[in-house]
């Protein structure tokens, strides 16, 4: 009974936050002279009205799921991985690099190999802050932020020095490494939908299994909750901190490969961060750090971002407004204390 109640309230807070966020967005629209009903109808149609936008929505949220999983996984071990963005960039580059090699390899080997390379690169980027935290107690928030900048510039430098093709980008990867699918494109009116969403779903299942069904997950969660009791129980706390960052980084790296092997098939020289890694923090927060929650939250954010395009063309509401709505949703989740307080109060009243 208690468990059910907790699950229920765990679901209620994000739901209420989404509704409040949309309501607040409507109020802002009213004040700015837009018609919120027209805008939200357009937003809805922009996600569901035809197979093309639905395909684009799924494509949009595929890497978001993985970056959300990366943040959530670290968070379960008590670590705040702000470095998902950087781990994602090195993962993207690693997947493209492997995709450019091994011409003629069967896709059944080439794709997994490229994804594994991305995971390894992301993991490597996670090892550094993990090690510094475990060994020297350097706070991971600082180091992961710094690792983001190092990733951005190192990736750009590598592309510029070794992989440059016309258009400030790498060559396109071999077909055998590509997640793009003519079939998926044909059933979605030639969207850029690719098989990556399957990878993301598998990722969510892996995270759930690792955390809840393995001794490793037991240790990681124990360390996240109480390092003293973990030490007492003979759990190697340092090892688990490093491992947590490695696994988190691997998820982030795979998120990068979704762009490299799926959406684009190449990597461009980037003038700024992609934002997918940072959005992962929001997704993880909205999804309450659970695998299923992350999938749902990523779907919501992906949908809002794709739907916003239609909202702009039909109702002339700038896409930035959806960014505000997303920010507000996160704001409401973060202040969930308020919502909880409010609902407790209502409960109390009801019982008297």
């Amino acid at each position: 009974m208690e468990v059910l109640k907790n699950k229920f309230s765990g679901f209620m807070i994000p739901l209420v936050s989404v509704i409040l966020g949309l309501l607040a967005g409507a109020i802002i629209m009213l004040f700015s002279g837009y018609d919120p009903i027209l805008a939200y109808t357009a937003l809805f149609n922009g996600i569901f009205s035809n197979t093309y936008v639905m395909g684009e929505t799924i494509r949009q949220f595929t890497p978001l799921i993985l970056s959300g999983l990366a943040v959530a996984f670290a968070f379960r071990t008590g670590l705040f991985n702000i470095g998902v963005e950087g781990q994602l960039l090195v993962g993207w580059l690693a997947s493209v690099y492997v995709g450019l090699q091994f011409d003629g390899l069967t896709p059944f080997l080439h794709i997994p190999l490229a994804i594994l390379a991305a995971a390894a690169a992301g993991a490597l980027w996670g090892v550094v802050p993990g090690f510094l935290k475990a060994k020297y107690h350097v706070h991971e928030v600082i180091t992961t932020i710094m690792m983001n900048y190092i990733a951005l510039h190192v990736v750009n430098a590598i592309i510029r020095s070794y992989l440059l093709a016309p258009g400030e980008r790498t060559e396109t990867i071999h077909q055998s490494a590509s997640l793009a699918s003519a079939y998926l494109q044909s059933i979605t009116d030639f969207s850029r939908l690719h098989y990556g969403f399957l990878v993301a779903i598998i990722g969510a299942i892996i995270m759930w299994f690792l955390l809840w069904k393995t001794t490793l997950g037991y240790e990681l969660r124990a360390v996240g909750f109480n390092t003293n009791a973990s030490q007492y129980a003979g759990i190697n706390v340092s090892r688990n901190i490093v491992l947590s960052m490695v696994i988190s980084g691997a998820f982030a790296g795979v998120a990068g490969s979704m762009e490299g092997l799926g959406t684009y098939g190449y990597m461009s020289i980037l003038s700024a961060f992609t934002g997918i890694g940072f959005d992962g923090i929001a997704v993880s927060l909205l999804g309450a750090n659970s695998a299923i929650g992350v999938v749902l939250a990523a779907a919501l954010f992906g949908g809002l971002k794709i739907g916003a395009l239609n909202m702009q063309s039909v109702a002339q509401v700038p896409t930035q407004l959806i960014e505000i709505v997303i920010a507000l949703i996160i704001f409401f989740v973060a202040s969930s204390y308020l919502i909880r307080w409010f609902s407790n109060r209502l409960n109390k009243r009801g019982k008297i």
Partner: protein
Amino acid sequence: MEYVIEMRNIRKEFPGIVANDNVTLQVQQGEIHALLGENGAGKSTLMNVLFGLYQPEQGEIYVKGKKVNITDPNVANDLGIGMVHQHFMLVEKFTVTENIILGNEPRDKGRVNLKKAAKEVEAISKQYGLKVDPYAKIEDISVGMQQRVEILKTLYRGAEILIFDEPTAVLTPQEIHELIQIMKRLIEEGKSIILITHKLKEIMEVCDRCTVIRRGKGIGTVDISETNPDELASMMVGREVNFSVEKGPAHPKEEVLQIENLVVEDARGVPQVNDLSLSLKGGEIVGIAGVDGNGQTELIEAITGLRKAKSGMIKLSGKDITNHKPRKITESGLGHIPQDRHKHGLVLDFSVGENMVLQTYYQKPYSNKGVLKLPKIMEKAKSLIKEYDVRTPSEMTPARALSGGNQQKAIIAREVDRSPNLLIAAQPTRGLDVGAIEFIHSKLVEERDKGKAVLMISFELDEILNVSDRIAVIYEGKIVDIVKPEETNEQELGLLMAGGKREKVGDQ
């Protein structure tokens, strides 16, 4: 007869548990009324209902004969009900006065009038003989003083009825004595007091009447002048309670723990355990008596592998375990009931079931090739919960939701069940009620009788004298003497613990 507080037939439910079931509490003007019950019996729930933190499902509350509806603590404050919490709610960096006026600041043209407030605080402090300096910072004053600040806080807000939630748990004997004087003074000045406690000695000393709760049910109210500790204890526990530990003579066997010339330094590099030697045989309980801070913590940490020994040797069942990893030592046959159950003993956010396998989760049958076998874990948890009478709604409940006594029982279940050759029990009964204490002591004796060695650390001399077969006195990181409980007394132990010498040297 009109009562200052009357709670009639209160019922409060939580998911899976009835915390209060038809409890009635009637407090007369000017009395100290004890609320007695085991850990988790529902005392705190009842007081939280009175203080407006919980709403009861059934029952009525009357204050001075008038029916009231206490919807939140502010209403309770306005009705003159004040609570002195067990865990102080004070801002360390603030002065006494600043803490007392917090949330109720006297304003003067938009500014807080601290001087006026300090004068008021001083006046109240004088009236009740509290002797609190209104300008002292909280972080600079003793725990006993901090508690007086909590008392002042309720008085400043005009409390007529004061609830004390286990006030003596954190105090030294001297401070307890002073607190009792303060309570008597409060009564003289016309206040009424509800004292939540499970210490029978204190109830007999200060209270006028006592209401007993057992497993959420109101058992009854008795006049202290017409009762005795035995009756109170059996009302509380529901059966006869043994205050003295029942045990036959020890039959020590082969040596289990050997410590030779152990030196352990603390984080600053100061040796806390200094050339300590001690040996322990199977089938005996050795109690370590000493004033807190004489190396007990470091000694346990060194034995259990949580802290590195600088030099010396520790042998467990003949095997050298000095500076081995905690898990390796645990697997060599060590059980450890840690001093701080929240910090070391439990992962509070884990379920009771998950906590039950904290030392064994990686072994069969609880996991196989790195995959947890949750059904097996929960099955084990269920049987331990039953065997050790851990009162919890279910094995899926977070450990955090359990009362202190039941948390401790869960730890003991986990550690004793592995049947270790050496069981270290560090303050195993701290903060527990007589029922739980009796249970834990009997478990320690049971392990001894199975031929296991038990090393117990305690600051309670009663406990040391009652449970131990031998008493090792620790002073400044050394074992200064070893005595038999039947050949010593509290005075002699107290002297030894303070670094004194025995008159005649007894045999060991």
